[in-house]
């Protein structure tokens, strides 16, 4: 097969790609920040929260973790309006990513919390801190530090998973690739370029998260 690759379309369609990258990055930022916050809240509820709250959080986590992201997205975008809750595609995409990362983050962060030596809780208590104060000032940061690599990987996974939001017409990077190929029929070239950009975004994101880890958590010396 002598197919000749042609990247001439890049000259015309680069604004579409740039816009797509922008949306993917924005989705990742919003989803990452709010998702981790939701994850922390849920992890607290599951590990240390009141017992009546735990089954609800557990149900949410199980539901999200055992269904594909795409189906969640469809439900939020096409299903929720039936209940009178209408979101635009970007809000829906953001919302889906937040609740998705929230569920995975919950389990990861919970593991970090449960690995906290009981002495830390006791030290907090013996200094007169309340349970919430102990969680916030004593437990949380080391717990996040413990699971930061796992959480970072999950954020990258969610970023790559965001490719699915093109299905509800959110104009992310995958949408851009699809759009370009639907106009030019240059599918390989469009997907190949998109793949490279995703790879660069993933590597960049991982580095950024590592850097964030360095600034959020004090350096640990060997021994």
């Amino acid at each position, binding site marked *: *097969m002598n*197919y000749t690759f042609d990247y001439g*379309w890049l000259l015309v369609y680069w604004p579409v790609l740039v816009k797509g990258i922008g949306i993917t990055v924005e989705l990742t930022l919003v989803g990452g920040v709010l998702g981790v916050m939701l994850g922390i809240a849920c992890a607290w509820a599951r590990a240390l929260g009141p017992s009546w709250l735990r089954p609800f959080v557990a149900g949410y986590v199980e539901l999200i973790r055992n269904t594909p992201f795409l189906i969640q997205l*469809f439900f939020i*975008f*096409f*299903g929720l*309006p*039936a209940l009178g809750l*209408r979101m*635009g*595609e970007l809000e829906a995409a953001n919302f889906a990513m937040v609740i998705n990362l929230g569920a995975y983050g919950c389990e990861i962060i919970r593991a970090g919390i449960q690995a906290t030596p009981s002495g830390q809780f006791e030290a907090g208590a013996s200094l007169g801190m309340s349970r919430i104060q102990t969680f916030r000032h004593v437990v949380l940061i080391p717990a996040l530090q413990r699971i930061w690599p796992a959480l970072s990987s999950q954020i990258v996974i969610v970023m790559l998973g965001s490719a699915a939001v*093109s*299905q*509800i*017409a959110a104009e992310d990077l995958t*949408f851009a690739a*699809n*759009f370009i*190929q*639907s*106009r*030019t*029929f*240059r*599918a*390989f070239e469009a997907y190949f370029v998109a793949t490279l950009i995703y790879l660069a975004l993933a590597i960049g994101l991982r580095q950024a998260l590592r850097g964030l880890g360095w600034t959020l958590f004090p350096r640990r010396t060997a021994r």
Partner: protein
Amino acid sequence: DALATIEKDKVIRIAVPQDFPPFGTVGADMEPKGYDVDMAKLIAGKLGVKLDLVPVTSANRIPYLQTNKVDLVISSLGKNAEREKVIDFTTAYAPFFNGVFGPADVTVKDAAGLAGKTVGVTRGAVEDLELTKIAPADLTIKRYEDNNGTISAFLSGQVELIATGNVVAAAILARNPPKKPEIKFLIKNSPCFIGLNKNEPALLAKVNEIIATAKTDGALDAISQKWLGAKLPADL
């Protein structure tokens, strides 16, 4: 030479949609059916070879062709200059009346009236290409992956209007949805073409010949009556 291979192997592989009623959809037995499917059957019959139907999506139909996994794409393809650089098109085989549809309480009479509105469309479909050409500056076009997305977006109120084929709109109406898509204006009658790889003059000529015959002997008209409920327009 694709035609020689087809005749030698006694089989033709044709890509058809399965998410675009009435051109391509599935029955309860999950077998493809529709205008494009019947067209494929017609061509295979005329060539006297076995038909191998390959269901495709709008995202992968052209790669199927380019990697030689199919010989023809019959997938209500619209034609434009950019696409013509990549693949060849036969003569038109089907009419496509596309227009902008919306609920009764939205008043739009022409393209200019779309200003400030949001229109849903299936990405890469004929109507997407046509609507994009005539769209006023502040029209928001939401492009969905497939027809299903477009319809769901309309029914769930995510877009006020949709641009689609009149037969598609009729299909929605037939299910008596809470929101009825009524015709606002026609965009353009842009016919559909069969796609095939470049540098296949023999196959192109043969398929063009089959289409021409089918137009005159009433075969195509029958397909049109069956799926579109209308005669084949004379100017096709």
